[in-house]
């Protein structure tokens, strides 16, 4: 501990704190902008400057550590003048078209303006850049709004390890981008959208799909169905002032009905279906491997389209490790335009499927040429959680006053195993609950059905499961120690994939989610996201699971019915046609795109 004086208050603070952290810990707010707790500390905007007695220049409080005896003024005339000047300089190179910007009222630059009473037009001059890159189906880059804080550079390089965003050029001409004026769609961007979560302004955003969805809803000839991913219900409430971790499942369903959707389905139903298909695929691979037949292990989950694109770019020779299962919302879309269309007697071409996802990469996923059956795209539009909130507000629906609604059948019932798909470790746990029971005929013998060691926010988590006394048809697995690993965020994925590509992976099954923490903190979720918020959303997801009567995917009565009435059996002919897919060798520079995999 050291003693510092901030604004004439003597304070004892930790000696490894920065001035900003020390002030914060003592309820003194130093206006700051580019700084992001635990993520980004760069000192580029200088908004957080303070006066330190004895120092000639003002100090960026996010960068400078406290020292014993330091005397700090956060609000002196000199500090306030400098702060105002810095803010006005940032504004002088910003379009200021706030009223038409999607970040209006959720913009950190705007919010900062409330603290700093800037004078308009005092500093007007040349604008440095105006490039808008709309090439990506997921993310739109409007560089005229970029404030060069470099948060996106940090998440893209250091947190995700992808590195398609970096500062190019120098000084006034600096622009954040992939380099060589390449559009985002032409490089190895995985479209995870983590950059859109940290961008303080409207420079990086999801590509807007609201208009396409409204158009479909206003078209009377269309039967518009919507589905919601497990992570959406654990975060949507934040957009309406609820505490992080508040579950708003029922209100969300009611809101979707009020918006005019003809059927409100649950992606969770398809998550249960994924477990049946993927679990059987794993058993199929294990059976082959144990009987000396060719089979690729470890098998790796395929629900996260950002992760899939990453592996296609980075490890194009390892695509056989990926489960061939489509992601759950694609499965549901395929079923909506076949099974459901048959049931209600509607031409599948008239059905318009909207997925509400915590994810920006899903917007890219629906454009993949594989995601089409019988000439119909499986899913027609993807809205992020943020976009759904905007849609609800736009329609004048008073979310907080809504009652609880229920999802529609036959694609609306789900088990607790499906709920946990939204968090890191969830897909693996759901798969283990079902696979263990298929193999042994007994329920997974863990407290509350949880696989504790793969829960939580650690980058790489592992578990081992000893198979004892299996059923006769799985005798060959007797005594086998099933090894699994779970990771979220692409840095962790890289660690596990390096083992895979060196043929050194000790695992049978790996779960990868592209965003740190999993879908609960996906690129389409409400801002901000930090570890505390991640944990709250994660708790909410596990709560939803534990509150369900049915907690194992194979117990879902509508899944059982679906196989009886339509699919016949897991990995069967219909499943292969509708629910499974193939992957594309891309290469880090897209140099492999000509040759198609499988």
């Amino acid at each position, binding site marked *: 501990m050291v003693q510092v004086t901030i604004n004439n208050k003597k304070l004892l603070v930790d000696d490894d704190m920065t001035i900003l952290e020390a002030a914060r810990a003592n309820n003194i707010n130093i206006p700051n902008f580019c700084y992001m707790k635990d993520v980004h500390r760069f000192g580029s905007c200088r908004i957080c400057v303070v006066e330190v007695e004895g120092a000639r220049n003002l100090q960026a409080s996010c960068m400078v550590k406290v020292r014993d005896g330091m005397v700090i003024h956060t609000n002196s005339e000199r500090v306030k003048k400098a702060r105002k000047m810095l803010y006005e300089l940032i504004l002088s190179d910003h379009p200021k078209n706030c009223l038409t910007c999607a970040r209006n009222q959720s913009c950190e630059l705007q919010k900062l303006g409330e603290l700093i009473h800037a004078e308009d037009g005092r500093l007007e001059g040349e604008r440095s850049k105006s490039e808008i890159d709309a090439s990506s189906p997921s993310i739109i880059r409007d560089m005229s709004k970029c404030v060069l804080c470099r948060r996106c550079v940090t998440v893209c390089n250091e947190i995700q390890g992808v590195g398609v965003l*970096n500062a190019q050029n*120098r000084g006034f001409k600096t622009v954040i*981008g992939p380099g*060589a004026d390449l559009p985002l769609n032409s490089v190895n961007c995985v479209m995870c959208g983590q950059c859109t979560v940290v961008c303080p302004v409207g420079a990086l955003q999801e590509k807007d799909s609201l208009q396409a969805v409204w158009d479909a809803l206003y078209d009377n000839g269309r039967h518009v169905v919507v589905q919601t991913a497990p992570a959406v219900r654990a975060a949507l409430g934040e957009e309406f002032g609820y505490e992080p971790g508040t579950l708003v499942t029922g209100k969300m369903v009611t809101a979707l009905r009020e918006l005019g959707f003809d059927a409100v389905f649950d992606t969770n139903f398809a998550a249960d279906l994924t477990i049946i298909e993927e679990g059987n695929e794993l058993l199929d691979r294990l059976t082959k491997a144990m009987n000396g037949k060719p089979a690729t292990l470890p098998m790796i989950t395929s629900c996260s389209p950002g992760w899939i694109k990453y592996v296609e770019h980075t490890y194009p020779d390892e695509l056989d490790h990926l489960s061939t299962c489509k992601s759950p919302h694609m499965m549901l879309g395929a079923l909506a335009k076949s099974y459901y269309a048959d049931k209600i007697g509607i031409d599948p071409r008239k059905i318009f499927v909207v997925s509400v996802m915590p994810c920006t990469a899903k917007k890219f996923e629906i454009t993949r040429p594989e995601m089409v059956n019988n000439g119909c795209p499986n899913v027609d539009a993807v809205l992020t959680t943020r976009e759904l909130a905007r849609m609800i507000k736009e329609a004048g629906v008073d979310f907080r006053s809504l009652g609880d609604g229920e999802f529609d059948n036959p694609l609306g019932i789900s088990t607790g195993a499906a709920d946990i798909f939204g968090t890191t470790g969830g897909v693996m746990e759901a798969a283990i609950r079902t696979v263990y029971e298929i193999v042994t005929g007994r329920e997974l013998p863990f407290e509350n059905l949880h696989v504790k060691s793969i829960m939580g926010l650690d980058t790489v988590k592992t578990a081992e499961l000893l198979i004892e006394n299996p059923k006769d048809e799985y005798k060959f697995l007797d005594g086998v120690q099933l090894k699994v690993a779970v990771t979220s965020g692409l840095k962790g994925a890289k660690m596990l994939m390096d083992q895979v590509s060196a043929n050194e992976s000790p695992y049978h099954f790996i779960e990868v989610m592209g965003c740190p923490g999993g879908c609960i903190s996906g690129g389409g979720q409400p801002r901000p996201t930090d570890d505390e918020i991640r944990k709250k959303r994660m708790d909410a997801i596990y709560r939803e699971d534990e509150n369900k009567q049915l907690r194992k995917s194979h117990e879902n009565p509508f899944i059982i019915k679906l196989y009886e009435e339509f699919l016949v059996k897991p990995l069967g002919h219909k499943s292969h046609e509708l629910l499974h897919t193939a992957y594309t060798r891309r290469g880090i*520079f897209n140099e492999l795109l000509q040759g198609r995999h499988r």
Partner: protein
Amino acid sequence: MSNSVIQCRCKKETEAEKYERIAEVIEEYKDREGSLIQVLHMAQGIYGYLPVELQRFIAQKMGLPFSRVSGVVTFYSFFSTKPRGENTIRVCLGTACYVRGGKKIVEKLREILGVEVGGTTADGKFSLEVMRCIGACGLAPAMMINDRVYKQVNPDKLQSILEKYY
């Protein structure tokens, strides 16, 4: 790394040989922290300039994102992404050289060579660049041709200086 390795042999070497030599440089440097600038410097010495294809090659060999390599290349004015002349003229426009007539040197060179700043003559002989202070303020106005510094340059003498390079 000896100096001869980075010397330009562009006229005598094939494309593949240049890439091979750059790969050797990367092999030697890639595990050293912060060696990207060093590698780019040498690669430019070998290849003459740093086109996007070469930047990709360097990125892949060094295990770095392309955007990072391109970011460094576009940050430093010393690096060029366009083909450069056999000889690079750099006129200093730092404060001391500027007030002692650096600008006039630039004007005269533009006239003699028929190129703008940043350009290369049609015969590929000279590239013309300006720099902000080459650290030779006592010799102002100064300019460099390749590694050689010319002091107190008189615009009228430029023609005869350039002739030495033909």
